[in-house]
């Protein structure tokens, strides 16, 4: 009898445990489910700040530098650029450059589309909230246009061909099993246009360098027109913006790259201490993702900062010490060999330290804002439009005049008016000027891609810089002036169309 009681007790203990679900239904502390994420306009505002933080131009800066003639291998190289072959023009679907751009662009788009879809479900409480919602939506659509144009920039073979393929067009939040084909440039341009129109109707801010403003939208229209070689329209758009964005003077220009000055900045990606990009990132890799200056050096922007990439000699030779851009691009601790061909140890006798991203030596070296749209480009776009219209020479409204205007500002003195024999020379001069003006800002490869052939320019390195691997030149018509669709996409989406040559 006694045992029976014990048995009953024991059995009931088992039953109690049987119903014990506390071991299984565990809600981990500190989790925010997707369905609870966006419930108010204030949440959307937080989401918008998160969306901005997905923007990162450092992979573009890295690729445009190492793959072209902006760089040479630094004296403190640990194999960066050589090991992965980027410096040897090795580009394939497994390359970091194509993987980083593609995945970053689509991660941004996913973030924007989630915000747009969430916003549709939120009813603003009052007029103030409605205004805030409009501002948020305007900015997100502007950002989406920006990323979509980047997809065209890097993955389309020909910007002027509306029938050429760009990337996957996505204006919704996909499900994980969706596999979509690529769309054409034309379809991309239509969505970009629609986003820009909507943004323009919603935004109230005219100008603000760190957020999407009306001027951002106008600049986007301008860049798209330039890429599509719709020059008259482009010229008109440039003229709209120029009065509000004068060229910086020499002091201001230096200040721009130490983040002390915002003259002529239409848009930049703000980088501050302790933000998501405050770190070294992947050094020497196309994934980058940290301080912009860490694309070139490990520690800081001086000779003691362990520069693993240095300024390519062919670019350096274009820089005039009287030009403020010499001071900005070449750090003053550099060792400049008077005659590189006479050097016994070229690597240690000619150390040209990239000076564009010094960061704040008193706080965080190498950490700088990433300048995305600058006033100089307005003038250079006008120069391009003039060349396309046949106005290559002359004291006003000509390619020569616009180039002189920019050089006057950079030298601080009156510069000679160039003379061009033909359009090729003019385009070539624009390319050379852009090479100096936008060095290390992620332009070189894109510029060669869209204008190299017209200007008779390609990648050309100084012989000593390419002795290490023989990769000295590459014509702008090479298939590697379009990125391949990366393996990470084709793995999942094997039917997606690959770019020619890969």
């Amino acid at each position, binding site marked *: 009898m006694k045992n029976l009681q014990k048995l009953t007790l024991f059995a009931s203990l088992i039953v109690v445990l049987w119903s014990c679900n506390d071991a299984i239904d565990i809600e981990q502390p500190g989790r925010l489910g997707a369905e609870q994420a966006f419930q108010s306009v204030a949440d959307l505002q937080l989401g918008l700040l*998160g969306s901005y*933080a997905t923007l990162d131009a450092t992979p573009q800066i890295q690729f445009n530098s190492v793959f072209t003639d902006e760089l040479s291998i630094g004296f403190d190289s640990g*194999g960066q650029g050589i090991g992965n072959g980027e410096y040897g023009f090795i580009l394939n679907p497994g390359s970091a450059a194509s993987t980083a751009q593609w995945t970053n662009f689509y*991660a941004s788009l996913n973030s924007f589309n989630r915000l747009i879809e969430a916003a549709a479900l939120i009813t603003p409480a009052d007029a103030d909230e409605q205004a805030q919602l409009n501002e948020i939506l305007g900015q997100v659509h502007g950002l989406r246009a920006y990323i979509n144009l980047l997809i065209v920039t890097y993955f389309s073979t020909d910007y002027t061909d509306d029938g050429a393929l760009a990337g996957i067009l996505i204006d919704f939040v*996909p499900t994980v099993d969706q596999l979509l084909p690529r769309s054409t440039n034309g379809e991309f341009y239509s969505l970009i246009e629609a986003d820009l129109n909507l943004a323009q109707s919603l935004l109230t801010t005219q100008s603000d360098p760190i957020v999407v403003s009306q001027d951002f939208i106008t600049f986007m229209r301008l860049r798209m027109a330039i890429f599509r070689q719709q020059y008259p329209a482009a010229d008109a758009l440039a003229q709209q913006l120029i009065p509000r964005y004068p060229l910086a003077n020499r002091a201001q220009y230096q200040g721009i790259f130490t983040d002390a000055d915002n003259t002529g900045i239409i848009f930049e990606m703000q980088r501050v201490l302790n933000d998501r990009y405050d770190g070294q990132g992947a050094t020497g890799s196309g994934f980058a993702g940290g301080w912009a200056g860490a694309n070139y050096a490990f520690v800081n922007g001086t000779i003691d900062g*362990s520069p693993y990439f240095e300024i390519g000699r062919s670019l350096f030779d274009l820089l005039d010490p009287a030009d403020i851009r010499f001071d900005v691009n070449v750090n003053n601790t550099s060792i400049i060999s008077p005659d590189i061909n006479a050097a016994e*140890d070229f690597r240690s006798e000619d150390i040209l330290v990239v000076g564009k991203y010094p*960061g704040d030596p008193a706080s965080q070296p190498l950490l700088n804002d990433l300048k995305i749209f600058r006033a100089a480009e307005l003038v250079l776009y006008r120069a391009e439009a003039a060349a396309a219209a046949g106005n290559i020479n002359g004291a006003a409204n000509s390619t020569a005049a616009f180039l002189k205007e920019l050089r006057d500002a950079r030298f601080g003195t009156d510069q000679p008016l160039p003379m061009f024999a033909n359009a090729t020379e003019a385009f070539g001069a624009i390319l050379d000027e852009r090479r100096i003006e936008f060095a290390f800002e992620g332009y070189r490869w894109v510029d060669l891609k869209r204008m190299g052939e017209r200007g008779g320019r390609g990648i050309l390195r100084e012989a000593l810089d390419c002795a290490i691997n023989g990769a000295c030149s590459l014509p702008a018509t090479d298939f590697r002036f379009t990125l391949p669709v990366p393996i990470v*996409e084709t793995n999942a989406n094997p039917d997606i169309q690959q770019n020619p040559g890969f």
Partner: protein
Amino acid sequence: MKSKLSWLITPLLALFMSFSYGQGKTISGNVTDQNGLPLPGVSIVVVGTNNGTQTDFDGNFALTASVGQTLRFTYLGQKTENRVVGASNTINVQMEEDAETLDEVVVQGYRTATKETSSIASSTVSSETIVNRPNASVVQTLSGQVAGLNITAASGQPGAAPRVTLRGVGSINGNTDPLYVIDGIPVDAQAFRSLGNNDIESISVLKDAGATAIYGNRGANGVVVIKTRNGSFNQKLSISYSGLLQFTSLVDNGEYELNNSQEQLLLEREFGNGRGVGLTDAEIAGFTTTDYPNFFFDTGLTQQHTVNLSSGSENATQFTSLGFRDEEGILSASSLQRFNYRTNVTGRTSDDKFSYGANLAVNYSQSDEPNAIGTGGINRNIVLAAFQSVPYISPDEYTNGAALLSPLSFANTPLFIIDLLNTFSREENELQILGSFNADYKLYKDLTARVVLSGEFRDQIRTTVEGPTSFNALLFAGGRDPSGFQTQSIDRQFTYNQVTSLNYNKTFGKHTIDGGAYVEYFRGFFQNFGFQQFGLTPALLSPGDGDAFIADNPNDDLFVDTVFANRLETGLFSYFFQGDWDYDTRFGVTGTIRRDASFRFAESNRFGTFGSVSGRWNIDKESWFDDNAFDVLKLRGSWGVTGNQNIAITAPAGLAFDAPDLTRDLFTTGVGQGGANSLFLNQIGNNTLRWEATEQIDIGVDFEVFQSKLRGSVDVYQRTTTDLFLASPVSSINAVTQLNTNTGEIENRGVDLTLNYDILRSNKAGGLNLTLNFVGNFNEQEVIDLPTDDGRLLLGGGIALEEGGRLSEYFLVRYAGVNPANGNLLFLTADGEVTENPNVDTDRVFLGKNLTPDFQGSFGFDFSYKGWFATTQWNYVIGVDRIDNDLAGFLNPNNIGQFRTSRDLERAFTPDNRITDIPSLTAQNLALSGNSDRFLQSADFLRLRFATIGYDFPSQFLEGTGISNLRIFAQGENILTFTPWRGFDPEVINTFNPAQSRLFPTPRVFAFGLEVGF
């Protein structure tokens, strides 16, 4: 069985009888063993009373008892005998050896069986092969001892957890460690750093599904059941001490032919990069060569002391152990110190209805653990400096960190690291408490209720300090003055496990039935918190102390601290049944079924069902199977399905807490634009998540032949893992490029073989004994199914999967030597044509090689004669291929001027030396070598893993000294290695990043020890 039954019934009878008989008389007698020799110390009690005695030195005893009372004779290793007092005043007893205790008890998971009635595939390693082995981690000691258990060292760091796989690799992304259970406490591989080895009585490795299905979705990778020692009933207090003194050193197996200073400088001069440029021959001759491998690696001294006290009375036993180990690693700044305390007690009621045991171990360890090992951090990785430093830079050039800032030269690597050793510390303190309690109560004579409650508490404090005057601190100071940082991270975890069961055991004639119903409940709590403080005042600096912290100034925010905290919970709930039927110890069948629920799959697949059936046929028990050489012949077979719920390794917290809610779409907050707080997606959920399932078939034979001189077992198995948790590629439009899903299938097939052969066997004490041992496993893997359309899945690092191929196979462009025309590298295209410019994507081929051995195991001998004993264990591993990136570095011309290179470069192509295996130093396609198999090398090895020689002093020497036994011994580990691998240690590998080089090699150990018993 008969005696057991009467033993069960006796208490009731005795209680009843004692009322009838009251007259006591003196009973005397003599107790002998099976050979007729007197047995001293046999415990004799009058059952049901406190009356008892022990036999004297000659086996004689005398005590008072009444007619009809029962005397119980117990002695360790002998069968318990009961005698009812009758008319005679003399009772002489000859005891029999107890096969059940001497023939090892086979752990079956939640129960035990005898060797004969066990139908599972398992191996047991006894304490003799564990105690005093000179490894801090007992898991490391198992290397080579169990057929099918592959143990790969991850690091030479004292106490580092090795990677353990059983019978091939059963998972790709999930955890492949077996489940470890210490005295009923489930723990992970990290639990052994602080655990004392000498407390362990036995380790059983459960291998087939018949054994592991009872562990449900934790059993797929095998189960390692560890029992710690207990005292014996009726045992006098025995005290023993053992001490170990060991010397560890770098195995100087590096066959890289590294340059000395002169060779290095001449090469630099010739190549035009580095300090050698511009030096005269005389200047070069003046440099000395610093042996950096032996500068940063040094002989380590280790001492270990253990004191054990064990005793037992009629109804209680205790075992207490105190241990201390102080180990210096061979690498600078690596060490382990630990203190262990353990008490195990057991008790029972005198009617044996209720028994219990309680185990408590408190372990504390403190280790210095260098980080960044394996990385390319020239300012962080001490191993890199040891291997790659140019030999002409002398350690004497070091003054302080500031002096290294300008010019910042990579060649100064050794000086960076010398500075690191002076200014950086990384220390881990761990407190571990392991406790378990078990109790059995016999509800009826056949029915027992049992409960096992157990828990592990672990508290780990990791303190990292970078001194403000260090090179690294100054280098990354930015505007901070002083710079430097201190990071402290505290992990605390508690896991609780409870098993409640009812067990039924009954014999009907020749049939014995044993069954159990179980409920298991597991719960775990993890908490992490810590901070990183930037800015330390040099004068006040002390690791772990905050007095040196510099407060933030809001004007510049240079000293903003980072704080972090994390909490995780885990849980499992299961119920299961096991039934075992035995017929006359000739046949037996065991069936297991388990329903298992894991918190990990609560929202997708709540309960999983696992189970197994196993059977045996003890052929040697058949009457017709006499008159042959076989003493034992048993055929076993099992089939079953187990699961692996540890499908992903995501959190630093450890397995139990990994991947806590992969089923959910999650957002989180973090730094957004301009440093503002923001909200973003951080996880896309998978709502079909489930465990990985492994189906295993095993057929085995256990045998003993020639008077049991040759003993062994052979098992053939096939393990098929389905629902493999693999990264399935998804389109980038999802913001990720892969999502882990349960898809894919792999198979491991193989043979386990264990053989022991007594060449010489003596029946006398002190006779000559020599036994040869062999342990072997052959395993092959095949990828059956993958989630991609083309049947391939790239895993990165030159490794991929292909249906029909091997697991994690190398997928690289084939290197084909040097072009005699220009010194460039030659490769093969996918079609086998020679080219200088292969397509690094499409010209890759599967090479049929991987990291998992085909054959591995050990062989050796055990020898004893007149107190002398010796053991050797040679481990062998065949079929392992690794990319030697250390070699790649030593042959990389881009390293000339910065790092040490190999003499092999002297053979480099020049127009005068066209036929060579080393490409031109300026080869134009050198970058492609990293995409090829140029540095893929065999890492097979044969290694004298362990050897010991020692002497047990005979008891006559010890008489009158108060010492009951005395043993001295010397031993060694990793004494000799034969391998084609050119690196320092073929065994050390980062299995998560197999191409990683600059790893911390395992040391060679020589140890001297002493054991004294009182």
